[in-house]
């Protein structure tokens, strides 16, 4: 990047939007679990959902530089919306997911007015506080959310009227993967556009962007709304494929986990969140015999090591090893 002359912006974007063989190989590989590990499709669907959630955080954190410790608010909001619609008798998955996305998007749009005004510590505190606020509200409104017991009685109809959500997870993984691919295509298009460039400008130096005529506030509001919508979709998928919603979907732990995954994979890279989710969830599944508290010991050590030695995550570390031709994947 940077080698293209500035007089040819179109060529720059054309170059960036071109699909690389490694990317295509990655997306074909996501189909392998159907044949190689059919007993792990439920886990695979969890990974696809979490990867989508991490991708949504990447849009605001990795590209626009908005540090959020409360991103689970939108995930949980989408989750409860999708769950409640199904509980109230409308179990059609696709339209339910759209409604969940719209609800989370509206919430994201409203909060984006606040988010765009702050930076630094105040921003971290406000996102953290907002996430905690919503979790407390859901806990208090147990008549609606089921409180600590979780939302019971979610019954989904068949996907497209044909495929039932079963214990094996065929429908769940196909559904989650399809949504992930669509969202990824959208994010990829978004990032490799002038809008995406403006976001990176905000990340690098927010005060200078208005000086060159790009209103950073409007851009932040837009990307925050998009990220919230995407997080709501991920939450809705989780509610629909597991047919239950727990308070944990809104909790601080989930916000912290997704941040860890994104950093592990590499923030500011489209595949960072997805790779991070794959590694994190597979490792947790393999070590699930261990007490979860000790699991966090290793995650903590890993975080310290990543910050100290791998500032750009695993993908950033790999990018230094391979020739530059591959490094934009």
């Amino acid at each position, binding site marked *: 990047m940077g080698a293209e002359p500035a007089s040819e912006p179109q060529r720059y974007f054309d170059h960036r939007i071109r699909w690389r063989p490694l990317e295509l190989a990655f997306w074909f590989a996501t189909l392998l679990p159907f044949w190689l590990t059919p007993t792990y499709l439920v886990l695979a669907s969890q990974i696809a959902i979490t990867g989508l959630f991490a991708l949504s955080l990447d849009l605001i954190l990795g590209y626009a530089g908005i540090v959020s410790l409360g991103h689970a608010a939108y995930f949980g909001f989408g989750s409860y919306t999708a769950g409640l619609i199904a509980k109230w008798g409308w179990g059609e998955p696709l339209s339910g997911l759209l409604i969940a996305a719209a609800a989370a998007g509206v919430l994201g749009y409203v909060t984006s007015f606040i988010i765009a005004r702050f930076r630094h510590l105040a921003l971290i505190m406000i996102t953290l506080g907002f996430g905690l606020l919503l979790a407390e509200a859901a806990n208090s409104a147990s008549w609606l959310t089921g409180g600590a017991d979780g939302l019971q009685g979610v019954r989904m109809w068949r996907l497209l009227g044909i495929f039932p959500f079963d214990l094996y997870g065929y429908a769940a993984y196909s559904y989650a993967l399809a949504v992930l691919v669509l969202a990824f295509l959208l994010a990829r298009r978004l990032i490799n556009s002038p809008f995406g460039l403006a976001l990176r400008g905000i990340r690098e130096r927010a005060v200078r962007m208005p000086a060159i005529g790009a209103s950073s506030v409007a851009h932040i509001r837009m990307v925050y709304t998009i990220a919230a919508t995407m997080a709501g979709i991920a939450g809705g998928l989780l509610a629909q494929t597991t047919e239950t919603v727990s308070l944990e979907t809104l909790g601080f732990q989930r916000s912290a986990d997704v941040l860890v995954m994104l950093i592990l994979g590499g923030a500011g890279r489209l595949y960072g969140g997805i790779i991070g989710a794959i590694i994190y969830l597979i490792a947790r599944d393999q070590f699930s015999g261990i007490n979860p*508290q000790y699991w966090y010991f290793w995650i903590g050590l890993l975080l310290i090591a990543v910050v100290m030695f791998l500032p750009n995550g695993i993908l950033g570390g790999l990018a230094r090893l391979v020739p530059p031709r591959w490094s934009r994947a």
Partner: protein
Amino acid sequence: MLGSAFGVLFDGLAYGMLLFLLAVGLSVTLGMMNFVNLAHCSFAMLGGYVAVGLTNELRWPFLATLPLAFVSAAVVSVPLERVLYRRLYGASELDQCLLTIGIVFVSVATAAYLFGTVQQSVQLPSWLRGSVSFLHHSFGAYRLFLIAVALAVTAILVAALEYTSFGAQVRAAVDNARMARGLGIDVDRVFAITFALGGGLAGLGGALAVEIVGLDHAFAFTFLVYVLIVVAVGGLGSIAGSFAAALVLGVSDMAGKYYVPELGAFLIYLVMITLLMWRPAGLFGRR
């Protein structure tokens, strides 16, 4: 009704003092180096476990454990600052957050491994257990003790910051670290000492907190939020701000729990967000 309001106010004051002890170190170090140290409450947890271990296992008197809680937290914070924190001065908030969240994860897991996940309690001497009657109201003896200790610590802190040469260096570094460096103040050294003192104060606060709020392995997480609220609302580097914010928070939290328990912690978060939206740099903040 008036009596209960008075009692809530008193309990809230004691709770606020506790929060102040836990938070003041973080406020000063954050103001000085702009280092977002989310692991501050891990030091408090360490102090709490030192006090619990010494009183319950070795039968030390409670008062004797307090200095040791201070010292052990301060001693542990020094190598952490030297080895880990030091490398991230001037790094992005995100990196600082991640590093210190990592430390919180490790400390929480270590505490669970060493002490289990049960709530710990501390053995108090008999004169701290009862209550004192004064003007037809009864006050918990321990809470009176807590307020006295916190006021004493505040007095010592303010005096040390206002009237010693080291205090002047700290104030200069908080106000403008670059300018202070230009004047020949070794800001990194000042910061290291302040960091140790702040960690020690958190350790002391942690030891004092066991009786009021209990202690378990998740302490570093549960109180992190409260401490951050105190610092963010009070304003970075402002001791008076932290003091005021801790009192407001302590009283409103107690009042919320007493009068509208169904709201839980909702009220606190609402108060914080509103205050921050009104004044992003905190009540007494200048930046």
